[in-house]
């Protein structure tokens, strides 16, 4: 991070810009640190996942509670068929995306790994977590400056997104094997969870609960990233579109 002395623009910094030749000091312009955090595959995955989650939640809800009965001959409708088709297609996109995201942790930068584990044994994780909780309880003014995710965000992501998504993929493919057959690869790879989760009906039920965990997570996620973008010391919304995270101050702490 740049030292706080150098964040006022100097005359040389203006070279090559439209302000070249002016006195930088009089402009009182500041130079802020920006770090490339979210690489293109991560951003693409994020928005593909957003789209698939929207489709999955809407269609999944209708699979549990179908819309009112249609009149006429069954041959002229395929409503539930389409709902299920969309659910399965979106589930495939979501799952392939998730798998690609896991692979990307081996190729991407250091922040790509934050979603997949919690640094349980590191002291700064716990102090960071406490700090963020205090910020959200209005007991502390501002959180620490973080480059990837802060400790609270990371905890929520790991439990409510990563583990829940994994559960939804495994239970989802197990339920999908109801249709493809118990000897299909879905049945062979994922079918074992059904007896373990209380049978087919129990698996449906827990899969449905998973939807509500995701819905609550999305609500909180959208709120906190917007709030952080306004109130914290770094940008969040734009960093998931262009990948750059900008910092509003250069204070070291």
């Amino acid at each position, binding site marked *: 991070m740049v030292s706080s002395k150098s964040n006022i623009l100097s005359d040389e910094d203006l070279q090559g810009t439209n302000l070249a030749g002016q006195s930088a000091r009089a402009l009182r312009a500041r130079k802020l640190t920006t770090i490339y955090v979210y690489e293109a595959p991560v951003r693409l995955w994020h928005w593909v996942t957003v789209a698939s989650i929207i489709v999955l939640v809407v269609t999944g809800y209708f699979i549990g*509670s179908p819309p009112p009965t249609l009149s006429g001959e*069954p041959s002229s409708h395929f409503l539930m*068929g389409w709902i299920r088709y969309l659910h399965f297609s979106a589930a495939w996109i979501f799952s392939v995306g998730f798998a690609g995201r896991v692979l990307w942790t081996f190729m991407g930068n250091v922040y790509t790994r934050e979603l997949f584990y919690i640094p349980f044994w590191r002291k700064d994780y716990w102090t960071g977590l406490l700090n963020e909780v205090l910020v959200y309880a209005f007991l502390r003014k501002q959180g620490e400056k973080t480059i990837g995710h802060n400790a609270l965000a990371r905890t929520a992501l790991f439990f409510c997104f990563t583990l829940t998504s994994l559960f939804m993929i495994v239970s989802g493919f197990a339920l999908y094997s109801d249709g493809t057959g*118990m*000897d299909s690869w879905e049945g062979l790879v994922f079918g074992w969870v059904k007896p373990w989760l209380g049978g087919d009906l129990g698996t449906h039920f827990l899969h*449905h609960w998973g939807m509500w965990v995701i819905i*609550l997570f999305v609500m909180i996620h959208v*709120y906190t990233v917007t709030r952080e973008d306004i109130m914290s010391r770094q940008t969040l919304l734009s960093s998931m579109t262009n990948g750059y995270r900008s910092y*509003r*101050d250069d204070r070291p702490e």
Partner: protein
Amino acid sequence: MAGLETFYDVMRRQGITRRSFIKYCSLTAAALGLGPEFVPQIASAMETKPRLPVLWLHGLECTCCSESFIRSAHPLVKDVVLSMISLDYDDTLMASAGHQAEAILDEVMEKYHGNYILAVEGNPPLNEDGMYCIVGGKPFVEQLKKVASGAKAIISWGSCASYGCVQAARPNPTQATPVHKVILDKPIIKVPGCPPIAEVMTGVITYMLTFDRLPELDRQGRPKMFYSQRIHDKCYRRPHFDAGQYVESFDDEGARKGYCLYKVGCKGPTTYNACSTVRWNDGVSFPIQSGHGCIGCSEDGFWDKGSWYARLQNVGGFGVEASADKVGMVAAGAVGAGLAVHAAISALSRARYKGDDDQ
């Protein structure tokens, strides 16, 4: 005692013609999903193999499995099955009683040690040392363990023996326990259902006689030929499901038109059984055909999985019974309200925050 009489001998002795016998073999092949080339194999097995001794024990049960079994139409129980197998002990069907009956058990166990099939209807309650079910003056669990020790394989008839069924529903006061959790060292075929379909029961036995091996089982130990598909997969009301046409309540237009029973709690989509293909009582009907949803009686713990008339299980622990969606919506509302309050406080504290970020 049946001795070494073959099935064919017995059938001929009972006046069944060769022609009927071959017809039976073809029907059996079809019922088991085998091609016509297996018909001679079945016939030859019937002609040459000695009858299979079967000991049929009854634990904590309601005898609905036996009631179903004796109504098998293909093959007919009267003509074939009770003669085909050598049903040496079955306390609800046998003529002898008391010490005489118990003596048969010991005799068969000794004579055919390692070669007989043990069919179990019901399950042993383990609480109070098994005293909730006494057969012949002893806890049933003792009889079960004793007879199982010499069995070649065990058939768990019905949901009681396979999963526990109603007597194992919460809170399970007698600690009724399915057979596979008591007998750990024998191959066990689960034929769940309350009761299982008659033709499924006789089909499993016929397969074992014909090929002298256990039918292919799925992960849960059920014969794949009858339990590899859901009722939903072959349901004749499935087009209404896909179209989005449901019975909303049992007295509505949809119910009269035979729409899908999904919304009134049909468990067909989560139940593995052959009801929608084999049907009941010589293929006459099955619950969905009669206008009532499947209750999922062949699935593990179906008594404890919520209402038979609702799609989603109820959630305990919320004071009143509430579905997952109600709880989820209340939670989403609470979180939404919490976020709104949090946003308001955040905005207030932000309003007091002066100056730019770099002081």
